[in-house]
C-alpha cells in the first residue's frame, strides 16, 4: 500500500504540496508515483527565480524505466530546488515526503488540490 501523509495535499498527477503557511509551498511526488516509476536516476530541476504557469511541466524525474514530468499546480516562482537530488536522485525513492522533496516555491494560492483521503480514493 502507498504511504499518504495527512499533513499535505495532492494533485491528480501524483505530486504532493505542503503549505508552509507563509505563502510558500514545498512540493514533491507521492509514494505511489515513486513506486510506479521505480529507481530514480536523474532529476531535472528548475533554478531559483524560474517562473512557471499553472499546468506547465517545470521539472522532470527520470527513473530507469521512464521519464515523468512534474507539473505546476498554479502560477508560481521557484525559491529553491533540492540540489541534493543532483547526486542522490534515489532520495525520491527512499524519502519522497522528506529528503526527496523537489522544489520550494511561492504562489498566490492553489486551487483544486485533494486532501489525503480524497487522493487515497483515486488510487483504489
Amino acid at each position: 500500500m502507498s504511504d499518504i501523509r495527512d499533513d499535505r495535499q495532492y494533485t491528480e498527477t501524483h505530486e504532493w504540496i505542503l503549505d508552509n503557511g507563509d505563502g510558500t509551498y514545498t512540493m514533491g511526488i507521492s509514494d505511489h508515483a515513486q513506486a510506479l516509476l521505480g529507481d530514480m536516476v536523474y532529476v531535472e530541476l528548475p533554478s531559483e527565480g524560474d517562473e512557471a504557469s499553472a499546468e506547465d511541466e517545470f521539472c522532470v524525474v527520470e527513473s530507469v524505466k521512464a521519464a515523468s514530468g512534474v507539473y505546476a499546480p498554479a502560477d508560481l516562482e521557484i525559491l529553491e530546488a533540492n540540489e541534493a537530488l543532483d547526486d542522490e536522485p534515489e532520495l525520491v525513492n527512499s524519502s519522497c515526503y522528506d529528503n526527496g522533496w523537489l522544489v520550494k516555491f511561492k504562489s498566490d494560492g492553489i486551487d483544486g488540490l485533494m486532501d489525503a483521503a480524497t487522493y487515497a480514493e483515486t488510487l483504489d
Partner: protein
Amino acid sequence: MKHTPLYQAHIDAGGKMVDFGGWEMPLNYGSQIEEHHQVRNDVGMFDVSHMTTVDFKGVEAKKFLQTLIANDVEKLKTQGKALYSCMLNEAGGVVDDLIVYYQDDENYRMVINAGTTEKDIAWINAQAEGFDVAVEPKLDLAMIAVQGPNARAKVFEAMPGVEDVAGELKPFNSASLGGLFIARTGYTGEDGFEIMLPEKSAEFTWKMLMEVGVKPCGLGARDTLRLEAGMSLYGSEMNDEVSPLEAALTWTIDLTDEDRRFVGRDALEALKEKGANNTIVGLVLEGKGVIRDHQKVVTNVGEGEVTSGTFSPTMNKAIALASVPKGSEGLCEIEMRNKMVSAKIVKPPFVRNGKVLV
C-alpha cells in the same frame, strides 16, 4: 495472462509483476538497480521460463537447420555445443534470434524468444515440410538463468550432481543430467548457466538456489545487463523488416558453404552487394539524463534512431544502442524531450565480466 511455474515464487518474493508480451513476469523485486549490481558483482537469477525450447529430431535434422537458420550448424561438432543465429524470412528480415544446441546430427535443441513463439513455430513448421524432421516444442520446460561471477559456484552448491556434469563446461557449451539441461550461456555479459528443467522441479530448484544466496532478479535488470553487454534484443535492434547486416549481426551469418541455400540468403547477398545503409552502434550520453527508445539521433553522416536506451547502473551514465547510417562516428546529438544533447558513438559492448570497456 500466462504464468510460469515460478509465478507464486515471484509473488512470495515481492515481485512487481508486469505484462511482458502476455506473460505476467517480475519487473523487479524492489530495486532494479540493486538487482543489476547483484549480477555484475556476485550472482542473481532470472525466471526465463516464458522463453520456448524446441527440439528437432530426425535423420534430416541437420540438413533442415542448415536451411532454416543463417549461421551454419556444421560448426557444431561436439555434443552440447551452442550456436547463436538468426532465422530469416525470404526478404532477409529476422524472424527471430535464437540459440541452437547440438546433441548429434539427428538431435538439436533450440531456444527461441517468448514473444515470437507462435509466429516462430508456425514458420518453422512451414519450412519443415518435405524434411524428415520432427519439430517438438517443449512447452512443459521451465528455464532459470543464474548469472554473475559467482553463478557457477552457487549452482554447484545448490544442485547436487551438477558439478560432475557441468564443472568443466566451457562457455557456450551444455550438458544434461537426467531431466536437467545446463548451458553455460546467458544474456548479461557475465558468466553463468541457463538451466532448463521440468516445470515440476522449477519451484524447488528456485528455492534451493535462494537458500545458498542467489537473489531473484527481474526482467528490468535483465534488460539493463544485456544492454551494457551490447546484446541485441529481438523487436528492438532487429525485427521482420531489419536485416542482420543492418543490426551488427553480420558475424552470425555464415556464407562459407555456397551450396547452403538457407532461407533469406538470396536477399542477404543482394543487400551485401548493394551495401547496407545502417548499422547498430553504442551511444554514451555526455551529460545527465536518460536515453529512451525511439529518440532521434543525428550523426556526422545523417539521421538515425535509438533502438534501446537506458541508464547504465555500472557506468552511472545513460547508454543506448542506436540504428544509424554507416560511417557514423565521433559525437552525435540525441533529441531528448525537445532538446538536442550530445553523446559519444562507441563500439559495444559497454561492459563485460564486470569491466567497463568504453
